[in-house]
């Protein structure tokens, strides 16, 4: 009877739907961030209208406590957050993949030391580490914030890459390459990396969504970027200037909603990719 449950519906169709939905939401947000300013050319830093105007025809998402346009800020914030997400995820991925590959492939003492380091960073909550590091920098540009997020969010990638490398290492094609006299670096790059490429791509997508959420958290506690606009910096000013208690819903709802939509669609994309690459998850 329980098994009967799996035989309903066409699983392939569901996967594709999930992929479509996430790609659609992602493209819509990216377009808003990059093409939006061409259609709606308003300076996000300029005072353009009366203070705290609710959405009207002239100001589609209203204005903030200084009279700055919120839609323009949102477009700029999307770019800022995406920039940090892309960079921070790349840094975390680089560290995580390197640590995981070296630990998994080298084994012995190298592996023990690297995994000990990984476990320690994993046990220390990344958001607290980020806050602690950011607290010591007076000026924080997007690159610095990306580095702070990147160097604290790699451990789970390292763990996963290590375990995949471990299982690949004992496969026949790796033995063959070893017997053929290839050097370690060549084996890792030619035999192991291509086999975990799909996983690495998924990890990147997840890291990116995590980094954008982390940026917002850092901003909310007052440690986000000191120049430029991100989704987090909009929320920060809304919080500091009491937008919620003063009922200015158009100020704090859009940046959060866009962030959730971005993060959820990236997660959905990773899930869809997971099902695509691991047919077992799809199966009935």
């Amino acid at each position, binding site marked *: 009877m329980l*098994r009967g449950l799996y035989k309903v519906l066409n699983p392939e169709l569901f996967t594709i739907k999930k992929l479509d939905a996430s790609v659609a939401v992602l493209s819509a947000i990216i377009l808003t961030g990059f093409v939006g300013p061409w259609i709606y050319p308003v300076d996000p830093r300029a005072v353009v209208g009366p203070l705290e105007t609710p959405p009207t025809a002239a100001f589609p998402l209203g204005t903030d406590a200084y009279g700055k346009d919120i839609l323009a800020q949102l477009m700029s914030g999307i770019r800022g957050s995406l920039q940090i997400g892309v960079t921070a995820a790349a840094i975390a991925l680089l560290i995580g993949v390197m640590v995981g590959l070296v630990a998994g492939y080298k084994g012995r003492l190298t592996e023990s030391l690297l995994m000990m380091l990984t*476990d320690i960073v994993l046990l*220390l909550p990344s*958001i*607290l580490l980020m*806050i602690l590091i950011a*607290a*010591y920098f007076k000026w924080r540009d997007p690159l610095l914030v990306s580095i702070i997020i990147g160097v604290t969010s790699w451990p789970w990638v390292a763990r996963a890459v290590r375990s995949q490398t471990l299982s690949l290492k004992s496969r026949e094609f790796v033995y063959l390459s070893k017997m053929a006299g290839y050097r370690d670096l060549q084996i890792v790059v030619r035999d192991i990396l291509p086999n975990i490429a799909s996983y690495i791509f998924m990890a990147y997508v997840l890291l990116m969504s995590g980094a954008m959420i982390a940026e917002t*958290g850092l901003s909310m506690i007052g440690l986000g970027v000191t120049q430029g606009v991100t989704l987090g910096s909009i929320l920060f000013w809304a*919080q500091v200037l009491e937008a919620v208690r003063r009922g200015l819903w158009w100020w704090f709802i859009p940046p959060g909603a866009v962030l959730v939509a971005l993060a959820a669609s990236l997660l959905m994309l990773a899930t869809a990719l997971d099902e695509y690459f691991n047919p077992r998850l799809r199966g009935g």
Partner: protein
Amino acid sequence: MKMPKLGPLATYLVRRSLFVLATFLSFLLIIFALPRAIPGNPVATLLAQLFQQAQANPDTIKAVYRKFMEEFGLDKPLHEQLYDFLSRVMVGDLGTSIAFYPRKVADLVASYLPWTLGLLIPATIAAWILGNLLGAWAAYKRKTAVDNVLLPTFLVLSQIPYYWLAMILLYVLAVYSRLFPVAGAYPPTIQPALTAQFVTGVLYHYTLPFLSILVVAIGGWAIGMRVLVIYELRSDYVEYSELLGLDDKKILGYVYKNSVLPQVTGLALSLGTVMGGALITELVFSYPGTGFLLFRALSTLDYPLIQGTFIILVSTLLLANFIVDLLYAWIDPRIRASYVGD
């Protein structure tokens, strides 16, 4: 001398506690090294500022400066600074706050910590239980309308930052419809005491922060549990029990028990993330917990207070982690069985 032979459970616990200790020490090293490694040493900069103010200003700033100088001891060699720092932390001396001078950091954090823990622990446990039940239900109803509604809901919920949900709940339920208070942890007009009036006031202020954490955290647990149950439902013993004709309820009971085990490990790992989110959620509600204190410390560059808050938060987390480890060793029949067998 012969070392006493340890059972597997004891070995596991000794190894775990050593690891937790090593992590704590590494964290202290990070705390120590950060201000000293960053170009321009922010602590030295702050010190120079205090020194300038002390030239022009009355005795208190001089006193703050002297205290700060003594506690950070930046004029001493590095290894002496490290020794001083570690030995002070070990006896629970976290220094003196600058913003709240002359209050001690440890006392300050201790007075704010209960509000944070009071929010964090019940919300985490409630979310864990509800998330597991909902996730298992979604897995059981897989490929039906129930799961097709539940899964996307969980996915979206799990991606909402607590503090943004907090803003929305605060706006809808407190600012707009005036059902709940807009700020604080208890009514400002009532003296904190163990009276029925005060307790009701506390619970009334507690509802929204609690809900913000609960609702979001349920999503994450449910997603994890759903996948675990789906895998478990395919295992051989489930098919075998079905062929034997056992009723679904009984099988589901076994499936649930087996799937919930990895979720206990997940509980330990998630605590840090939940704490980070909860600290920021406190800001939204002006809830007088550690997040609120940390924000004050950060905006006044009160480095002793920042460091102290982190040391206490991380020790609390590591302790909680260790408790979850104990719990896991206690409920996992594999560890227990090998212990009894030894």
